[in-house]
């Protein structure tokens, strides 16, 4: 399966993931609700493409932002 963080990802691409991940998180959603969540998730995945598309140093600390002092 292709990774989902892409700027061309579609609702069809994410539907299976959304259904499985919602179940993993214990959310019991109707078919209609799952479809709406899949639409949002696809939009999020297109945004995530910008995030994962930037090469960062391997040692970049993800917690560094917590220390502005």
């Amino acid at each position, binding site marked *: 399966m292709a990774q989902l963080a892409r700027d061309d990802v579609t609702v069809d691409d994410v539907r299976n993931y959304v259904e499985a991940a919602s179940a993993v*998180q214990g959310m019991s959603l109707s078919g209609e609700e799952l479809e709406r969540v899949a639409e949002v998730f696809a939009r999020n995945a297109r945004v995530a493409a910008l995030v994962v598309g930037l090469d960062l140093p391997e040692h970049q600390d993800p917690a560094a932002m917590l220390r502005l002092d």
Partner: protein
Amino acid sequence: MQRALEIAEQVRSGTRTARDIVEAALTRIGDTDAAYNCFTTVTFDRARREAESVDAARRAGRPLGPLAGVPFAVKNLFDVEGLPTVAGTRTRSLSAPAEADAALVSRLTAAGAVLVGTLNMDAYAYGFTTENTAYGVTRNPHDRNRIAGGSSGGSAAALAAGMVPLSLGSDTNGSIRVPASLCGVFGIKPTFGRLTRTGSYPFVANLDHLGPFATTTADLATAYDAMQGPDPADPACSRRAPEPTTSQLSRGLGELRVARLVGYFDQWASDPARAASIKAAEGLGAVAEIELPEVERARAAAFIITATEGGTLRLPELRSRYADIEPHSRDRLAAGAITPGAWYVQAQKLRAWYLQKVLEIFSRYDVLIAPATPVPATEIGQDWLQLNSQRIPLRPNLGLFTQPISCIGLPVVAAPIEGVSPLPIGVQIIAAPWREDLCLRAAAHLERQGIARARIVEEPSA
């Protein structure tokens, strides 16, 4: 409604009593709030009790605080003793009443201010419009058919409608700066960690900030100063001692080096937003136009962090009460709760990297100017926006210009700019971490020049 410092001076001098001022505020709220729907609770008894306490202190010759007798109200995600903290949601309306006030409410009260009520917001603070299904939409005092902005919409609109001179809101991605811009008032989003969040309902722990709204920079700085100081109960709150700003306001520009943010910020700005940014920059003698590096990716990182943390925090309701969750939010919360961990970690790394890049810019410039919102207030119920030759969803994109700034915790004053649009619109005055004094100095300079000014509506619009 008078300015906060005028009120405090009258109370200190005995020209008016705090009780008289609070009664006038309660009357104003009673007469006008139906037109705007800013308040979700009016705390009549408490307000009268606190006002009488201020008056008693004066009669006894005890020292009065800098905000003596000033009526204020808070976004309804702040704990207020005796009230449920609803955070704009139906699901929390039956929760147990708060046992104590939020820390910032306590600090303003200790400074003499008098709480008169709680204010409407987007559910869970997840929105930019204050179109709240459970509590109704908050209307913009400058045009009741338009949004007040959000998520602290009630906090900004209550000032613009002249009901209170001071309010508190929260800002995760722009929720102080967006409504301040659309309602034409001042707001400050301090450095991440500057003001304690104890006793406020969380949304995104990594991005949540609290701050005040006011109608002048002097009022804003006074309220901000009164709330500074460490608090071990909030692990994100800095241990720095208070760094007062009110004495800085009259210093003028001095040697401040100001730059206007262009590129992304000009590209997505409507004509009024761009004009506001240019006018403010000219008023501050800006010496350069610069671009932030990878600003679109930084905004994307804020978006992913918000979705993930916001959704994860709401998992109990998503599992058990999906149908009761605000319809504008629930699908976004559910989608956020299933975000892959790798996206979230990369987003955190990205903003840490981006912070370092932006800090390099602050070695050359002291203050950066950008629009606060891409457009003035839009119509209630509007779903789409035409910007940059593209049709984009309105609700998430009102934060286009605020998210890339708050995701790295920089201090920002939102200042309303005069003479660029029939409806209000504001700019962001941005500085390096812990330099709120510079933001406020620059805002005060614009205010003295007549470039920045709050717009207060005397009578409800049609």
